[in-house]
């Protein structure tokens, strides 16, 4: 075994020497693992090609590694095997996992400083960059594709139910009232959601300026504890569980597989990510509108601001200095105003810099594309608080599963909202404590 390894190493080494001699000027390769398919995959390829064409020193090589969890696992496995990519796209729920892996990742603010790139953290939109920064404002990963949760509604269904299609409901009582009218007009379902825990717990808490967890939702320490049993949380889930009985509200599953409920016209109102835009635009055979998420008027300070979803680019640790320089150059290239404005207008994701948002406004894009500014208004409406800056809970993927199980029990009527949320809270805390032990 050891002799074989020796030969392998020797062969690889001599090949490397040969290759190096043959083309001393070969560009430094930078591997970028991502989870984008379809149109968004084209965007990634275009960005890489444009960057590679703009200079000869570095070469970005993007590779698709499956869906978000698969890409994260591929990155982790590669790191354990000692050949991680330089850039790894990780979804927002993996943030704490990545952050806890000191030594496995290279924080972006360090990377930019060490490679001497011009980098101003204040030029990024605070609600977007804040999600991926420390509580001191040091950026850990580069925001890439960001979205937030908004309300989608079917204008045709609204008309049929005798509702004003140009005046979407603003508060939860209004929304429930609208859903009841839709149901009464003979529709199979009034209201539904995608990503049930993201919508009804994470976004819900931020939007009502309630803590999801202590320690600024975990951003200030791994010893955060969940706080999802507040009276308003209970009221929200209890109300929806009651409405589930007559399909005024109809549970739509844990992920976005229930999107068909809206696209097919079954549900008149749908809470989902702003990145749903492409799908609705391509497939909905009705007039649709968007609006901000509903809120309970009795909550002081509501609506606050929503949090983001999507993914960011993490730089993996243990790479060579000139490779890091290339990554830094690429990040500068990505943050360019024109490029960000183009990305935002083409892909449906949100711009990450203030300048790109301003430019899109100046281009007159929003009046021509109604609804596209809704997520930005929601995100940037108010300066974020400790409850709405972001969420940094370890093993959040697992916690979301636990939350979803308990919410399902509440909607199925096998548990009361109170009991379900208490169980969700304590079971989630157990996972957090385990994570705390492993990152110490």
């Amino acid at each position, binding site marked *: 075994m050891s002799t074989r390894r020796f030969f392998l190493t020797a062969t690889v080494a001599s090949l490397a020497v040969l290759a190096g001699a043959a083309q001393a000027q070969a560009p430094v390769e930078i591997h970028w693992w991502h989870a984008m398919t379809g149109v968004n995959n084209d965007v990634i390829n275009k960005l890489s090609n444009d960057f590679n064409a703009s200079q000869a020193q570095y070469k970005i090589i993007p590779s698709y590694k499956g869906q978000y969890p698969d890409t994260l696992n591929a990155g982790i496995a590669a790191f354990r095997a000692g050949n991680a990519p330089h850039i790894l796209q990780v979804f927002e729920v993996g943030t704490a996992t990545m952050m806890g892996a*000191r030594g496995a990742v290279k924080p972006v603010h360090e990377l930019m400083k060490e490679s001497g790139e011009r980098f101003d953290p204040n030029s990024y939109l605070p609600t977007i960059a804040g999600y991926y920064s420390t509580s001191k404002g040091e950026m850990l990963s580069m925001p890439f594709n960001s979205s937030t949760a908004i309300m989608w509604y079917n204008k045709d269904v609204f008309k049929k139910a005798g509702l004003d299609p140009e005046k979407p409901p603003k508060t939860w009582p209004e929304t429930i009232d609208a859903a009841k009218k839709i149901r009464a007009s003979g529709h199979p379902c009034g209201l539904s959601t995608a990503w049930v825990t993201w919508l009804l717990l994470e976004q819900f808490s931020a939007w009502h300026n309630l803590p999801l967890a202590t320690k600024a939702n975990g951003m200030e320490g791994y010893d955060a504890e969940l706080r999802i049993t507040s009276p308003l949380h209970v009221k929200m889930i209890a109300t929806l569980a009651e409405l589930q009985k007559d399909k005024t509200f109809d549970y*739509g599953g844990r*992920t976005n597989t229930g999107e068909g*409920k809206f696209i*097919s016209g079954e549900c008149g109102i749908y809470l989902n990510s702003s990145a749903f835009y492409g799908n609705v635009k391509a497939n909905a055979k009705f007039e649709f509108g968007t609006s901000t998420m509903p809120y309970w008027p009795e909550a002081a300070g509501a609506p606050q601001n929503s949090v983001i979803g999507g993914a960011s680019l993490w730089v993996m640790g243990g790479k060579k200095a000139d490779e890091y320089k290339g990554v830094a150059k690429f990040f500068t290239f990505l943050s360019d105003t024109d490029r960000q404005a183009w990305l935002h207008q083409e892909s449906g994701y949100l711009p990450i810099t203030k300048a790109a948002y301003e430019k899109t406004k100046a281009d007159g894009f929003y009046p021509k594309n109604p609804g596209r500014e809704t997520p930005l208004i929601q995100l940037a409406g108010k300066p974020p608080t400790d409850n709405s800056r972001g969420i940094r809970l370890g093993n959040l993927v*697992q916690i979301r*599963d636990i939350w979803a*199980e308990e919410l*399902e029990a509440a909607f199925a009527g096998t548990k009361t909202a109170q009991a379900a949320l208490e169980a969700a809270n304590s079971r989630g805390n157990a996972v957090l404590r385990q994570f705390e032990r492993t990152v110490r």
Partner: protein
Amino acid sequence: MQKRAIYDSKLLPYLLLLPQLAIVLIFFYWPASQAVYQSFLLEDAFGLHSEFVWFENFEHLFKEPDYWRSFVVTAVFSIAVAALSLSLALLFAVMADRQIRGANAYKTFMIWPYAVAPAVAGVLWLFMFQPSLGVVAQFIRGLGIEWNPLLNGTHAMVLVVMAATWKQISYNFLFFLAGLQSIPRSVIEAAAIDGAGATRRFWTIVFPLLSPTAFFLLVVNVVYVFFDTFGIIDAVTLGGPSKATSTLVYKVYDDGRAGANLGSSAAQSVVLMVMVIALTAIQFKYIERKVHY
């Protein structure tokens, strides 16, 4: 007469065995031992921090009410799938074994589902039974039944059992058919002459002679249900609602891959490994005695 094979050197037999041994060691024993080792560790996803915690992962596991529940779920699921797929396959095989027109076409169609990947089978059933869009779901709703596998645990279970059974019937069918065809015609004809009816012939002659096949299939089916059905569950229900379809193997996957909790996941696979070894041993020790070869 010399029975021993003749080898000049003592080394040669070992050398000939080596490839097989290497495969077994590298692909079975080494990963299995890794899993056992992992089950004693508390580790973060990146393997940067690792702590030897003895049996803590197991303790946690058995204190978790969810884990016990997934035992029950697994029992219901495996009994339902094994019983349904074996009995239906036997019924179909007996039907196909008769002299009927188009028997070959019928047999071929029966075998097709086996070529479908588990996840695809899952998606196929999901499409048919998806509450808002599925063809069958709409029919069931038309009958006035409130079909909702997204929230109703029993409905979700019925759905995964159907998908997993459908997938396995072809395999069982194939073996039962082969088994039936190897039963000597003369025995059956003799019984017929003695005045035994079709039912009596089946239970007193065909079924006992088929028992080695049935036993083999029982073992294979149990292993199938325990390990190979998670693709179906993942595609159809994600183990939900509220863990109503989260079997042991699905929980291993969910905690390990999605939850990055490698210690617990490894502990669960060790438990699963012990269970399947025990089950197979029991099957060989007790059920095999009743099998006529």
